[in-house]
């Protein structure tokens, strides 16, 4: 009896212009969700085991304890870490939580176990600016402020992480060859090492580790890029991806002579392109979902150039009016944020409102105009 309504709906549906299915994006996102689910299950099991072990009145002590990154602690922390993270001096801010790094914070890298903080070791800090000859300390800061000191590495060597994985990767040299060593972020124990035999250690275009996406790490130089599963050792060359600038979330930025591109690394397909004449090159959010490019000012070099934000997965521009073109970082989940003198502003590019929300900094904290603020999700190389 309502056949007429059905008929009208079918006519309406028949006229809908259906876009092409973004198969590669759906596969990428599906894999990411599956990894998150696996991890959530692991977290739940870890917490359950811990609670069962402690039992009774001791149960909630786990949540209160600030030990040195026990598995249960890290598991709990991992489920909570979705806040703007930044460092000033040797202080690390994770939302309302404040922690102290061993030295001046150089860069902050997201893992599923917490934030990996690279800081200059005290002797190095005394020298002032980094000159490449000193050492940096790596520490894990969990969401509850617990700090675990992990390792000391060469100055300016940034670890490579995936926000969804509890590990970090460092380049190592041995026997004249280049290796990627994989370490557990909670303890610093090495859990894997793969040889990058196709990449030179030195020379005009040395190999470097570009990014980590799940179990697959990407390494390359100007001529070659290779994807390596660090658990199995399986390697495959990435065709058409020479000269990668950065890798995040299974996507890479390549700057050509006249263009900057985002490509999907699973099939080398081009996800987005901008001409370099008129734009700076793309930069990716930690999860690879958003790509940003600054529109170069044509006339007025003193004005703030507009920022172009592109949702790669959904293939559309995102209107984040407030987001400044410089000086913003990313949360582990891929939300941009920036710091003002007394507040932190976070934008939500994936929600319908595309809102940017301002919250005060922790009580008593004020950021000087000239302060060297290090933001989470940015690869500072000094």
């Amino acid at each position, binding site marked *: 009896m309502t056949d007429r*309504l059905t008929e*009208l709906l079918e006519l*309406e549906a028949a006229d809908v212009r259906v876009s092409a299915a973004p198969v590669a994006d759906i596969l990428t996102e599906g894999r990411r969700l599956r990894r998150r689910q696996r991890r959530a299950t692991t977290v739940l099991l870890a917490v359950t085991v811990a609670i069962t072990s402690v039992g009774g009145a001791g149960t909630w002590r786990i949540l209160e304890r600030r030990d040195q990154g026990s598995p249960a602690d890290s598991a709990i922390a991992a489920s909570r870490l979705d806040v703007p993270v930044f460092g000033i001096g040797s202080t690390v801010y994770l939302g309302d939580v404040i922690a102290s790094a061993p030295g001046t914070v150089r860069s902050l890298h997201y893992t599923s176990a917490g934030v990996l903080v690279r800081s200059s070791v005290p002797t190095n800090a005394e020298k002032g600016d980094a000159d490449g000859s000193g050492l940096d300390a790596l520490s894990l800061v969990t969401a509850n402020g617990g700090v675990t000191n992990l390792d000391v590495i060469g100055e300016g060597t940034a670890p490579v992480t995936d926000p969804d994985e509890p590990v970090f990767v460092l380049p190592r040299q041995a026997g004249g060859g280049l290796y990627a060593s994989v370490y557990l972020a909670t303890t610093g124990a090495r859990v894997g090492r793969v040889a990058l035999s196709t990449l030179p250690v030195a020379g005009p275009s040395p190999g470097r580790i570009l990014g980590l996406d799940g179990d697959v790490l990407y390494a390359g130089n100007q001529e070659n890029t290779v994807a390596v599963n660090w658990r199995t050792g399986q390697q495959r060359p990435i065709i058409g991806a020479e000269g990668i600038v950065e890798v995040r979330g299974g996507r890479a930025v390549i700057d050509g002579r006249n263009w900057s591109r985002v490509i999907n690394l699973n099939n080398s397909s081009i996800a987005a392109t901008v001409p370099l004449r008129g734009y700076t090159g793309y930069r990716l959010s930690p999860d690879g979902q958003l790509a940003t490019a600054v529109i170069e000012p044509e006339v007025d070099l003193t004005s703030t150039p507009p920022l172009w934000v592109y949702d790669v997965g959904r293939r559309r521009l995102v209107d984040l009016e407030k987001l400044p073109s410089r000086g913003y970082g990313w949360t582990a989940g891929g939300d941009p944020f920036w710091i003002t003198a007394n507040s932190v502003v976070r934008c939500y590019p994936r929600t319908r409102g595309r809102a940017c929300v301002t919250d005060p900094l922790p009580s008593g904290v004020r950021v000087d105009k000239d302060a060297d603020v290090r933001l989470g999700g940015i690869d500072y190389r000094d």
Partner: protein
Amino acid sequence: MARPPTDADFSEFVRASWPRLYRTAYLMLGDHGTAEDLVQTALSKTYATWGKVRTLDAAPGYARTVMINTAASWFRKKSWRNEQPTEVLPESNYQDDLNRRPMLGAALAQLAPRQRAVIVLRYYEDLDVRQTAHALGCSPGTVKSQTSDGISQLRRILGDIGVTDIQGALS
């Protein structure tokens, strides 16, 4: 089926199911970008929870359920209650043929989000009251009242040319 499908199998499934899901999503939401978001999200979730899909034949139905559940969760958010999705820029390809039928799209846009979804699920996807209630996570009574109110509103907007008879709509 507990193991994830191969990329080739899943890609084929996505390409095959995408048009129908997209049309349903567009009818429910009235916005191309949001419809694409919804279907993309639903298919990604389907991949991630593939272990719950018992056979490949069941996958399209599973994906549709995931899509409707996802839409229902969107409807529950405050921003959805305050903000109706609309096409900001008119696109000529989507203009209705007024000689052929009344402006159903414009009429649907005047319904509340969940009411609109109920109408689409019942009369485009051909779900019964119980199935619609289950998919949207509400009671059968709510589906019946939303159906009745929705059709009344459509008839008011479209007149007799649109919906002439609602007998049996609540059965």
